[in-house]
């Protein structure tokens, strides 16, 4: 090591070319480890193009962010990688989750504290709203890069649908499980599904005009009015009747039609043109 022995260019050349016998080769390798000068010479003797290529790989591999686990899970179920990138980019990704979980918790606690007569009305009020508001919450955060995103060719409708599906996929199980588990929920455990669909579509349609806050607020107010009216008339069970369900289905179809017109003519939810 401290012998003053160093790699000659000739020896290094033969090492790089792979024409050295194993003995000298081992000596070269052992020396490189301990001698920074010869280490530098050896590094300079390596093919530059290969090194550049490998470096590009290193740069990409170290920069690539990992997908959050819910998205990795969805990818395993068939979600396209590009769609996962879109969902990851919405900083609102965690908001629907948070909203649903907190919402369900508050709902469970508050619901069980209410007098029995009000519990059904309470469930009927909250359950259909949760998906609609979750969807609206998923939109607000598109704003920061909206100006930029709008000038790209990617379908804004697809972005909207991705966010919607994701938000609903999060909110739906929470409410469903809540409905089945909570002791004060009876026949309404499923009766709210159609109203939920209607309110979600209504929220989406309003989102093509308004901000998320305004759209969510309006939907919530409308539904609150409906539930209060039903409760005052003591007609809560009416929600579960075929007539009422048909009415919800009709309203949902209507909202869908308006939404389709809005999207094809001018706007997608979230204010994209």
């Amino acid at each position, binding site marked *: 090591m401290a*012998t003053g*022995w160093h790699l000659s260019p000739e020896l290094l050349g033969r*090492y*790089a070319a*792979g024409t050295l*016998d*194993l*003995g*000298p*080769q*081992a*000596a070269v*390798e*052992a*020396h*490189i*480890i*301990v001698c920074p000068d010869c*280490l*530098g010479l*050896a*590094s*300079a*003797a*390596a*093919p530059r193009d*290969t*090194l550049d*290529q*490998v*470096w590009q*790989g*290193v740069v990409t*591999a*170290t920069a690539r962010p990992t997908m959050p686990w819910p998205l990795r899970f969805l990818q395993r179920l068939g979600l396209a990688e590009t769609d996962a990138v879109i969902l990851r980019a919405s900083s609102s990704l965690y908001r629907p989750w948070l909203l649903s979980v907190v919402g369900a918790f508050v709902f469970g606690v508050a619901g069980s504290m209410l007098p029995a007569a009000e519990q059904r009305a309470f469930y009927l009020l909250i359950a259909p709203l949760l998906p609609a508001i979750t969807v609206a919450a998923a939109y607000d955060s598109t704003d920061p890069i909206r100006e930029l995103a709008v000038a790209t060719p990617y379908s804004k409708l697809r972005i909207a649908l991705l966010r919607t599906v994701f938000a609903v996929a999060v909110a739906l199980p929470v409410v469903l499980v809540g409905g089945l588990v909570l002791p004060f929920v009876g026949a309404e455990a499923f009766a709210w599904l159609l109203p939920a669909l209607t309110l979600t579509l209504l929220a989406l349609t309003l989102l093509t005009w308004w901000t998320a806050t305004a759209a969510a607020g309006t939907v919530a107010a409308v539904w609150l009015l409906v539930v209060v009216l039903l409760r005052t008339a003591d007609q809560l069970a009416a929600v579960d009747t075929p007539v009422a369900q048909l009415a919800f289905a009709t309203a949902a179809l209507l909202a869908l039609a308006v939404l389709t017109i809005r999207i094809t003519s001018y706007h997608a939810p979230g204010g994209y043109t």
Partner: protein
Amino acid sequence: MGTPTDSELLRDIAAGDEAALRMLYERHAGWLLLRLNRRCGNSELVAGALQDTFVAVWQSAGRWRGEGEVAAWLWGISIRRLVSALRGRPAADPLGDDVVDAASPLVQSAEDELLLGVEYGDVGRALRSLPPELRATVQATVIDGLSTKEAAKLLGLPQGTVKSRLRVAKVRLRRSLMPARDGRI
């Protein structure tokens, strides 16, 4: 501000400094590439192992214990990445034991120390006196610091064969190196 040392670079990399990684790459990737090329003829596998090495360094520079040569540590990671690639499947855990193990010293026993502690010309002569299959075994275990299990994968041999060849090789090496050592110290 002078040129940072390897350990300073590793400290910066552990703190998330991309420029430090680039500097470490500029310094070490070249000789690692040459040396990997001496171990495996498949340039794609070699490039992959080299890339994995620096990705592993980025993710786990903080696990370097600050003992010994950084160069030796890097080689330890590289050769194990190459072994993983040869195995035909990536290491299950990208930050697996490889990185930690790689910090284990290059020289493992008194015999091995003897081997590397002498003049290089003597090692060369001693190695040359071995038949090729024994030389390859010595290279993989003593010089590259692989376990017999890893060496078996690199060489495509059963573990038992590697062990027995290594035993024979060490006996022979000691015999041919002893006189040289006595004369020197």
